[in-house]
């Protein structure tokens, strides 16, 4: 029998509004997605100069992880190799692949090339937060809560991780949708059980 885990925090983006634990914390509907991400970075005063060098998928992941963890995560509770990351999306790194392909006819951009894999966003989050735990990036046509709960529960039950950031991080041109969850063994204020039904409820609410 699998030990119960809890969703202790969530972050989502819908229609260029950022929600933390379902409460709106930032919005800007006028700017294109790249400008929206830069504005949010400045708004939350994150101060990580490498942010501007990242592709939009990595900016999205790093930004939302930072905001979600700020008030909800005590890094000191875990060793670096005890926090894992499991993400999925539909478009992999296609947003950056297209931009990189456009540079190839002239001089290929090394800075774009390094982001032509979807799991680079996980690497950027790990570098920023000193996470060294198990991680994986999956490409699915749509968000699959059954797979996500099964995979993350298995990591917990195998004692591979003690905390996990997991969810859906989709970005292609101006289309962006994101739901990130912080999953831990211990309960916190307003936490809910990490079950397929609860994940689907959060995902459906957050994505309208």
């Amino acid at each position: 029998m699998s030990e119960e885990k809890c969703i202790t925090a969530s972050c989502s983006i819908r229609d260029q509004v950022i929600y933390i634990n379902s409460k709106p914390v930032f919005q800007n509907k006028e700017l294109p997605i790249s400008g929206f991400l830069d504005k949010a970075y400045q708004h939350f005063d994150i101060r990580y100069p490498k942010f501007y060098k990242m592709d939009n998928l990595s900016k999205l992941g790093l930004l939302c992880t930072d905001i979600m963890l700020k008030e909800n995560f005590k890094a000191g509770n875990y060793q670096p190799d005890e926090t894992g990351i499991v993400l999925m999306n539909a478009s992999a790194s296609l947003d950056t692949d297209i931009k990189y392909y456009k540079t190839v006819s002239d001089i290929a951009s090394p800075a774009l090339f390094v982001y032509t894999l979807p799991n680079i966003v996980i690497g950027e989050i790990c570098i920023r937060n000193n996470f060294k735990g198990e991680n994986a990036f999956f490409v699915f046509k749509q968000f699959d809560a059954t797979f996500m709960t099964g995979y993350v529960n298995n990591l917990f039950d195998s004692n591979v991780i003690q905390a996990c950031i997991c969810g859906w991080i989709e970005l292609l041109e101006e289309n962006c949708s994101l739901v990130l969850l912080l999953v831990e063994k211990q309960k916190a204020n307003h936490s809910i059980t990490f079950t397929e039904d609860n994940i689907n409820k959060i995902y459906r609410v957050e994505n309208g």
Partner: protein
Amino acid sequence: MADLKLQIIAQLNLKDLKPEDIGDDQPLFIEGLGLDSIDALELIVLLQQEYKIKLSNAEDGPKVFQSVRTMAAYITAHQPQKE
């Protein structure tokens, strides 16, 4: 050198910096501006795109990209003559 600083900021997406934040002799890598190996490749692209200069010997890189001043000197010495 002011133009070169602007080009470096644009090429490397150093949006937190203004040209006046970069000293003429400030090291570009590690303890200076903190650039990394991907930035070094982007600086090579900058030389090709903006000045039509190909860095023929990779071993020259550390000297050429030591600072904005050394980059400017390399560009001046290697820029193709206009007819």
